[in-house]
């Protein structure tokens, strides 16, 4: 698949979801959303793992992609526990602990993966942008992140402080989102620096995925602020952002794999020509 195609796939996936969701009506909407949610996570996890296993054991980017994919796999496992036949084998207390642990560990994995990706430029030893530019970008990333996740983080943290242990996974998720969103800025910086090269595509698609995750969280914030969270159209609009985010991340993984494996193809061609 050509990298440019990977740019369009998320829009096709999201558009397909929106059409099906609006056609499904209120009764079938939860099913359509569930299918979109799990399909998106599967595509994203598959892309991350495809990228990770294009690298060799010990490669820096393999770890980054594995942690990113690990988050999605753990969230898929959490979603499996929502199935009554599986979740029903636990007591309600056990289920809360299992699901909470999976969400917290998944978010930790996402933060590590995004941190490794955000640090790739520095680790490479390439010349850094001037300190002023770097700090301005980091500041902007943190500001946008806190704007989106600050309020839910405060609400969930106050629930936890009031003794509601069920808020632990929400606090973990909010913290994970806050850090991961702030790290979109250095990922964007890397994507911009790689423009014109084959590596632009994985980094640009990763950035697009990060922005869509921010829009997804911001979308939920807006629906709650406007008290329209029960409106199916609002839910579809917000879920479309998740569809885009997941497929952009999956596409980024495939683009990364294509770049890495192209090297093998180049070497084979050179060997054949020699």
């Amino acid at each position, binding site marked *: 698949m050509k990298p440019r195609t990977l740019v369009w796939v998320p829009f096709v996936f999201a558009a397909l979801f929106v059409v099906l969701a609006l056609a499904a009506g209120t009764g079938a909407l939860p099913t359509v959303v569930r299918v979109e949610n799990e399909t998106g996570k599967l595509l994203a996890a598959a892309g991350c793992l495809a990228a990770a296993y*294009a*690298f*060799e054991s*010990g*490669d*820096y*980017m*393999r770890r980054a992609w594995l942690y990113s994919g690990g988050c999605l796999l753990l969230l898929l496992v959490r979603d499996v526990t929502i199935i009554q036949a599986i979740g029903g084998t636990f007591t309600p207390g056990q289920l809360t602990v299992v699901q909470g642990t999976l969400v917290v560990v998944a978010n930790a994995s996402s933060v590590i993966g995004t941190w490794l990706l955000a640090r*790739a*430029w520095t*680790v*490479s*030893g*390439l*010349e*850094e*942008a*001037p300190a002023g530019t770097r700090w301005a970008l980091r500041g902007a990333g943190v500001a946008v992140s806190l704007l989106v996740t600050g309020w839910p983080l405060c609400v969930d943290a106050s629930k936890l402080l009031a003794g509601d242990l069920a808020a632990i996974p929400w606090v973990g998720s909010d913290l994970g989102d806050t850090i991961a969103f702030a790290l979109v800025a250095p990922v964007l*910086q890397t994507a*911009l*620096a*790689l*423009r*014109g*090269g*084959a*590596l*632009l595509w994985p980094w640009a698609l990763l950035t697009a995925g990060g922005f869509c995750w921010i829009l997804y969280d911001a979308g939920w914030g807006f629906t709650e602020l406007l008290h329209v969270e029960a409106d199916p159209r609002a839910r579809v609009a917000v879920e479309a952002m998740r569809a885009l985010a997941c497929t952009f991340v999956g596409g980024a993984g495939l683009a990364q794999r294509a*770049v*890495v494996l192209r*090297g*093998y193809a*180049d*070497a084979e061609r*050179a060997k054949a020509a020699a």
Partner: protein
Amino acid sequence: MGGADTSGNAIADRIAARLSLYLGPHTGRAAVKTFALKALGRGPETLTLGDVPALQQALRPMLRTFVGRAQCEVVLQQIAQELGL
């Protein structure tokens, strides 16, 4: 993430062109400049064929980070082949 204009040195430009396939033209040139300075203490405009092994060695960690160890070696080998080394 600064860069530099074309060095005017054929060897540096060939290496930058190869790197630019992955990193883009701006960062490809910047990489040659950065690692020439780090490895040789001189700018890319002074590169000779004798400097290439040291420059390749300096480029290795950067390439390993972005494209992995296996592809890093492929790229370095392609650079050597293009320069007739």
